[in-house]
C-alpha cells in the first residue's frame, strides 16, 4: 500500500459518520486497501477506475449513512433487504443521488461527449478565473488607503522624459494650489545592512512629514511624522515598517524611542501596521524602483531658502481637493509651474522660457492608473476576450446537449409512451448537466489555481501588487456560479426542446429526413466561426509578443552578458577614510579574486547596465558652460570603477578605460560613449576634452573637471528597450565633501569566468570572507540574469496571452471538429445515397472539407480584422515589431487554417467509409 493511497482512503473514510466508522471502519479500510492493491497490479486503467468508483461509492454511502441513520434494532425489517426501503422520507434525496450516479454512469459510457464537455467548460472557466484573479488583484481592488480614488500622482513631463517634482514645485503647489488638498514628495534609496549577520538590503524613503496623513494611514505603534519633526534643531526620527521591526528588533514592543541602530542619533518613533504597503507609482524617475517594500522612513524638510524649479528629483503623491477633477488640477498646476520659476530661484533653475522650450507640463493622474499602467489594458483585453471564449464554450456545451437530446429522441419518446413524466425526464437531463458542469467547474478551479500560481512565479518583480494575488472568494464564487448556471441551462435546454415531443411521430420514425434543419446548423457554425476568430486574435497577440521577445533577445545591448557574475558588496563607510580608500579596497578585492582559478577578469563598479538605476546629469564642457538657470541637455551618468567596461564586454572604440592606477588618487578622468561624442564634439577628437557635472555654482562638484581618456560603444544602460543615450562614465569616487557620497553605499564586484559562471560563486564568496569577514555579500547575479530581468514585463504579458491563445485554439479546434463531425453524422444517409450512386471517396471528402474550410476561412477573415484592431493595446509592450506585422498575421492565419482543415479531416475520412446499405436502412 502506497502511503498516498493509504492517506486517500483514510480521507475518504471520513465521509462516513463516526458511529459507522467505529463499527465497520477497520473492515471497510481493509477491503478498500485490498481492492486498491489488486487494481494496482492490473495497471493504470483499473487503478483510475478504482479511485473513481471508490470515491463515488464512499461519497454516496457516507451521505446515505449520515442522512438516513436507522437506529439499530428498530423493526424496519425487510426494508432495504428486498429493495423496498427506497420509498421513504428521503426519497427525493436518494433519488437525486441515484440520478447523479446514473448520470455519471451514462456519461462514462459516452466518454467522448463527457470529456469534450468537461474539458471545454474546465478550460473556459479556468482561464477566465485565472485572468480575473489577476485583474481583480491588480486593478479592481482599491489601493489600501482611505479614499484612495482621490489620490493622484503629481510629476512633470517634457519633450524628452517623464520627470518628478523639484523642491520649488512642491512648495508652489502645496502652498498655492486649490485643486490639491495635500501634496507629499519623497525620494527612495537603498542601503545594505546586516541583520543577524545576514546582509539585508534596506529600502529607504525620505519624505515630507505629511505623507502618512495624506494616505490616511496611521502607525500601529507610536506615531507617524509631524511637522515639528523637520524644524531646525529637531531630533532625528524614523518610522519603520512592520517587517523591519520584526527582523531587526524581533518585534520588541518597547522599540519606540530607541535608536534605530545602536549608537545612532536617529530614534524610532513609530511602527507601521503589518498590512501597510507604500505603493509607489512607478519606477522612480531618478533611482529606479530599487526595492520592493520600504523599511525605513525619514522626514525631510523642504526649505524656501533652498528651493528652485530645477532638478526634478522628488516623486509626488497628492490628494485631490473635494470636487476637483484631474483636468482642473492639470490646468492649475500648469499656471503654478510657470509662477514657480519666479518664486523659487535658489541657484538658478528653469525659467518660463526654458519650460516652454522643453514643452514642460505637469503630470497628474490617478495613483491607481500610475501604479497599474500598461499591464492593465492587456489584462482587460484578455479578460474580455476570454469571457467571450467562455460564453462560446458554454454555448458549445449547450449545443452538445441539444445534439444528445436529439440522438436520444426516440428513447425519450419510448419512455414518455411508457409513462415517464416530464419531471423525470427533466431530472435525467438536469442531473447530467449538473454533473458535467460541476466536474467542469472543479477542473476549471484546478486550472485557475495552478494558473494563478504560475502567473505569480512569472510576474515581473515590478508588476504592482502581485504579492496580493490569489484565487479569492469572489473569483471562486464567480466560477461556481458560472458552472452551476451553465449546468442548469444545459439540463433544461433539451427538456425545453422535448416539449413538443410527440411519442407517436417519433417512434414511427417520422424524422427520416435526409439532412438537418438549416437554421440550427447555421447557429452552430456561427459559434465555431467566432471561436476561430478569437483564437486567431489571441494567437496574433502571442505572435507579436513572441517576436518582441525575439527582438529583445537580438538587441545589441552594447555589452556581452556571457560568463559574468556580479557580487554586491556592502561596505560600511566607517571602515574607510573616505571614498578613495574604499575604491582602493575594492581594487584589492578585485585583484585577489582575479587570482582564483577559473577567473579571467575582475572589475568593480557602482552602476550596472540595464538595471534602470541611472542618474541624468547636466554635463558641461568648457565651451558650453550652462548659463546660471539654464539646464542644458540631460546626459546619462554612470559611476564605474577600474576595468569595468572590459569586464562587461563593452567595446572600447578609442583611448582607454579606467585603470587601477587612476584610483591611486582622486581620479580626474572620464570615458564617454559614441552618442555623446556625436552630440557634443562631432568631427572633433574627444580624447583630452574636459567635462564636468554641472548643477549650479554652489555645487561642490560643479568645478571638478574630468579629462576624457576613452570612448566606448553605446550601451543600453536603462533597459533593453530604451535606445542608448549620450552617456558619460565617471570614476566611482567622490571628493570627501561631496553630496553624492551618501548614495553610493554599495560597490559591485564583477567576475568574468572561463567556465560556467555559477561554479565560481562559492570560491569568490570565500575569498571575500578571507579578505574581510565583516563584508556582506549580496545580490549575486549573472549579467544574463540582469538582462532577462529587463525583459520580464514582456515575458509576463506574453505568457498570459499565449495561455489564453492556446485555450481559445483548443476550444476552436474542438468546435470545428464537433461541427463537422455533426454534419457528417446528419448527412450519413445522404452520403450513403451518393456513394451508392457512385460518388468516390474523394468527392465525399472534399464535400465535407469544403464545409469545414468555409467555417475556418470565415473565422480567420473576421479574426484578422479583429486582431488589427485589438492588438493595438499591446503597442506599448511591443518592441522591434509593428502592431500590423504582416509575417505574424500570415503565419498565424496559415497555421490556423491547417489546423482547421486537420480538425475536419477526421470526420471527412469517416464520411468516406459510410456503408450505403447501412446508412439507408438505419432509421
Amino acid at each position, binding site marked *: 500500500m502506497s502511503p498516498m493511497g493509504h492517506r486517500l482512503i483514510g480521507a475518504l473514510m471520513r465521509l462516513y459518520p463516526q458511529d*459507522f466508522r467505529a*463499527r*465497520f*471502519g*477497520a*473492515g*471497510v*479500510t*481493509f*477491503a*478498500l486497501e*485490498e*481492492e486498491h492493491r489488486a487494481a494496482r497490479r492490473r495497471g493504470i486503467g483499473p487503478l483510475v477506475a478504482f479511485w473513481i*468508483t*471508490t470515491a463515488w*461509492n*464512499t461519497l*454516496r*454511502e457516507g451521505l*446515505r*449513512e449520515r442522512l438516513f441513520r*436507522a437506529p*439499530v*434494532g*428498530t423493526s*424496519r*425489517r*425487510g*426494508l*432495504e*433487504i*428486498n*429493495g423496498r*426501503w427506497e420509498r421513504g422520507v428521503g426519497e427525493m434525496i436518494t433519488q437525486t443521488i441515484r440520478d447523479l450516479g446514473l448520470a455519471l454512469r451514462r456519461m462514462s459510457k459516452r466518454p467522448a461527449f463527457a470529456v469534450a464537455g468537461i474539458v471545454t467548460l474546465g478550460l473556459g472557466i479556468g482561464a477566465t478565473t485565472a485572468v480575473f484573479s489577476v485583474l481583480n488583484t491588480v486593478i479592481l481592488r482599491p489601493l489600501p488607503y482611505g479614499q484612495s480614488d482621490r489620490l493622484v500622482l503629481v510629476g512633470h513631463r517634457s519633450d524628452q522624459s517623464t520627470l518628478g517634482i523639484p523642491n520649488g514645485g512642491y512648495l508652489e503647489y502645496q502652498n498655492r494650489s486649490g485643486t490639491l488638498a495635500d501634496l507629499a514628495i519623497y525620494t527612495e534609496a537603498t542601503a545594505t545592512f546586516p541583520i543577524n549577520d545576514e546582509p539585508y538590503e534596506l529600502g529607504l524613503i525620505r519624505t515630507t512629514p505629511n505623507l502618512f496623513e495624506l494616505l490616511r494611514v496611521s502607525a500601529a505603534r507610536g506615531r507617524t511624522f509631524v511637522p515639528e519633526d523637520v524644524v531646525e534643531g529637531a531630533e532625528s526620527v524614523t518610522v519603520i515598517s512592520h517587517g523591519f521591526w520584526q527582523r531587526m528588533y524581533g518585534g520588541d514592543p518597547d522599540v519606540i524611542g530607541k535608536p534605530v541602530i545602536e549608537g545612532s542619533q536617529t530614534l524610532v518613533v513609530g511602527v507601521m501596521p503589518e498590512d501597510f504597503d507604500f505603493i509607489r507609482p512607478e519606477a522612480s524617475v531618478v533611482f529606479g524602483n530599487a526595492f520592493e517594500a520600504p523599511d525605513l522612513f525619514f522626514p525631510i524638510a523642504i526649505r524656501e531658502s533652498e528651493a528652485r524649479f530645477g532638478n526634478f528629483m522628488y516623486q509626488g503623491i497628492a490628494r485631490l481637493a473635494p470636487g476637483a477633477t484631474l483636468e482642473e488640477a492639470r490646468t492649475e498646476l500648469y499656471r503654478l509651474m510657470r509662477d514657480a520659476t519666479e518664486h523659487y530661484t535658489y541657484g538658478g533653475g528653469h525659467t518660463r522660457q526654458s519650460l516652454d522650450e522643453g514643452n514642460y507640463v505637469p503630470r497628474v493622474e490617478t495613483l491607481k492608473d500610475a501604479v497599474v499602467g500598461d499591464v492593465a489594458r492587456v489584462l482587460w483585453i484578455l479578460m474580455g476576450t476570454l469571457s467571450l471564449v467562455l460564453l462560446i464554450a458554454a454555448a458549445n456545451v449547450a449545443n452538445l446537449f441539444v445534439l444528445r437530446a436529439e440522438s436520444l429522441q426516440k428513447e425519450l419518446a419510448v419512455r414518455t409512451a411508457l409513462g415517464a413524466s416530464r419531471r423525470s425526464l427533466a431530472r435525467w437531463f438536469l442531473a447530467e448537466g449538473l454533473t458535467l458542469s460541476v466536474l467542469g467547474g472543479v477542473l476549471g478551479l484546478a486550472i485557475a489555481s495552478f494558473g494563478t500560481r504560475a502567473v505569480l512565479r512569472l510576474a515581473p518583480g515590478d508588476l504592482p501588487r502581485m504579492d496580493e494575488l490569489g484565487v479569492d472568494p469572489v473569483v471562486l464564487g464567480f466560477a461556481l456560479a458560472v458552472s452551476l448556471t451553465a449546468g442548469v441551462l444545459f439540463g433544461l435546454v433539451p427538456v425545453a426542446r422535448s416539449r413538443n415531443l410527440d411519442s407517436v411521430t417519433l417512434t414511427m420514425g417520422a424524422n427520416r429526413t435526409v439532412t438537418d434543419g438549416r437554421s440550427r446548423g447555421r447557429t452552430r457554425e456561427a459559434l465555431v466561426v467566432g471561436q476561430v476568430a478569437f483564437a486567431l486574435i489571441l494567437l496574433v497577440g502571442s505572435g507579436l509578443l513572441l517576436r518582441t521577445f525575439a527582438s529583445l533577445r537580438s538587441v545589441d545591448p552594447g555589452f556581452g552578458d556571457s560568463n559574468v557574475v556580479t557580487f554586491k558588496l556592502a561596505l560600511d563607510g566607517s571602515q574607510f577614510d573616505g571614498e578613495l580608500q574604499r575604491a582602493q579596497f575594492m581594487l584589492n578585492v578585485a585583484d585577489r579574486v582575479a587570482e582564483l582559478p577559473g577567473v579571467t577578469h575582475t572589475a568593480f563598479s557602482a552602476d550596472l547596465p540595464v538595471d534602470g538605476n541611472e542618474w541624468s546629469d547636466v554635463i558641461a564642457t568648457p565651451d558650453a558652460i550652462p548659463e546660471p538657470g539654464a539646464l542644458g541637455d540631460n546626459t546619462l551618468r554612470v559611476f564605474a570603477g577600474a576595468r569595468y567596461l572590459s569586464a562587461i564586454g563593452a567595446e572600447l572604440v578609442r583611448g582607454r578605460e579606467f585603470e587601477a592606477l587612476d584610483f591611486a588618487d582622486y581620479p580626474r578622468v572620464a570615458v564617454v560613449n559614441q552618442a555623446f561624442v556625436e552630440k557634443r564634439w562631432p568631427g572633433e577628437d574627444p580624447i583630452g576634452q574636459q567635462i564636468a557635472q554641472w548643477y549650479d555654482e554652489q555645487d561642490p562638484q560643479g568645478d571638478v573637471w574630468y579629462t576624457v581618456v576613452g570612448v566606448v560603444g553605446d550601451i543600453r544602460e536603462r533597459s533593453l528597450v530604451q535606445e542608448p543615450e549620450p552617456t558619460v562614465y565617471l570614476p566611482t569616487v567622490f571628493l570627501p565633501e561631496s553630496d553624492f557620497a551618501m548614495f553610493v553605499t554599495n560597490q559591485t564586484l564583477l567576475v568574468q569566468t572561463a567556465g560556467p559562471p555559477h561554479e565560481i560563486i562559492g570560491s569568490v564568496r570565500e575569498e571575500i570572507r578571507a579578505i574581510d569577514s565583516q563584508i556582506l555579500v549580496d545580490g549575486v547575479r549573472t549579467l544574463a540574469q540582469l538582462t532577462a530581468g529587463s525583459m520580464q514585463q514582456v515575458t509576463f504579458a506574453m505568457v498570459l496571452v499565449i495561455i489564453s491563445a492556446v485555450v481559445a485554439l483548443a476550444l476552436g479546434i474542438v468546435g470545428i471538429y464537433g461541427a463537422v463531425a455533426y454534419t457528417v453524422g446528419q448527412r450519413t444517409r445522404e452520403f450513403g445515397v451518393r456513394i451508392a450512386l457512385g460518388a468516390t471517396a474523394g468527392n465525399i471528402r472534399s464535400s465535407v472539407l469544403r464545409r469545414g474550410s468555409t467555417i475556418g476561412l470565415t473565422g480567420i477573415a473576421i479574426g484578422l480584422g479583429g486582431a488589427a484592431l485589438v492588438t493595438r493595446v499591446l503597442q506599448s509592450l511591443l518592441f522591434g515589431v509593428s502592431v500590423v506585422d504582416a509575417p505574424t498575421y500570415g503565419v498565424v492565419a496559415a497555421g490556423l487554417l491547417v489546423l482547421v482543415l486537420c480538425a475536419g479531416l477526421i470526420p471527412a475520412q469517416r464520411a468516406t467509409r459510410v456503408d450505403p446499405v447501412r446508412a439507408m436502412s438505419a432509421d
Partner: protein
Amino acid sequence: MPEQDVVALLPLKPAVFHILLSLAQGDLHGYGMMQGVREASSGHVDLKTGPFYRHLKRMLETGLVREVDRPADVDSRRGTYYGLTPLGHDVLRAEGRRLSELLGLTRRLGVLSGG
C-alpha cells in the same frame, strides 16, 4: 422463528442472497465475504466495498447476520468477523427454496430448452 417474518423478507436482492451464501460456509470478515461473493458468482455480482457494507449493515440490523469472535490466529486489521444468525439460515433456505421452485417451474414449462 415465525414463518411470516421470513416470508416478509423475500425476495432477496441478489447481493444479499450472495452474501448470505458466502457465510453459509462459515464465519468470515468483510473482505472475505466480498471475495466469496465474487468467486461464487463467477464475477457476475461485483460488490464494491461501499455498497457491500451498506448491505451488511442492513443485514445486521435485520438480524440476518451477527458479529462473531475473530479466530485467534487472524490479523486484527481485517476487522470484525460475521456469521449467520438462525434467522439468516432460515431466510437463506427460504430464498433458495423459492428460487429452486421458480427454476423447476421454468423447466416444466420448457422455457429453458426452447431458444
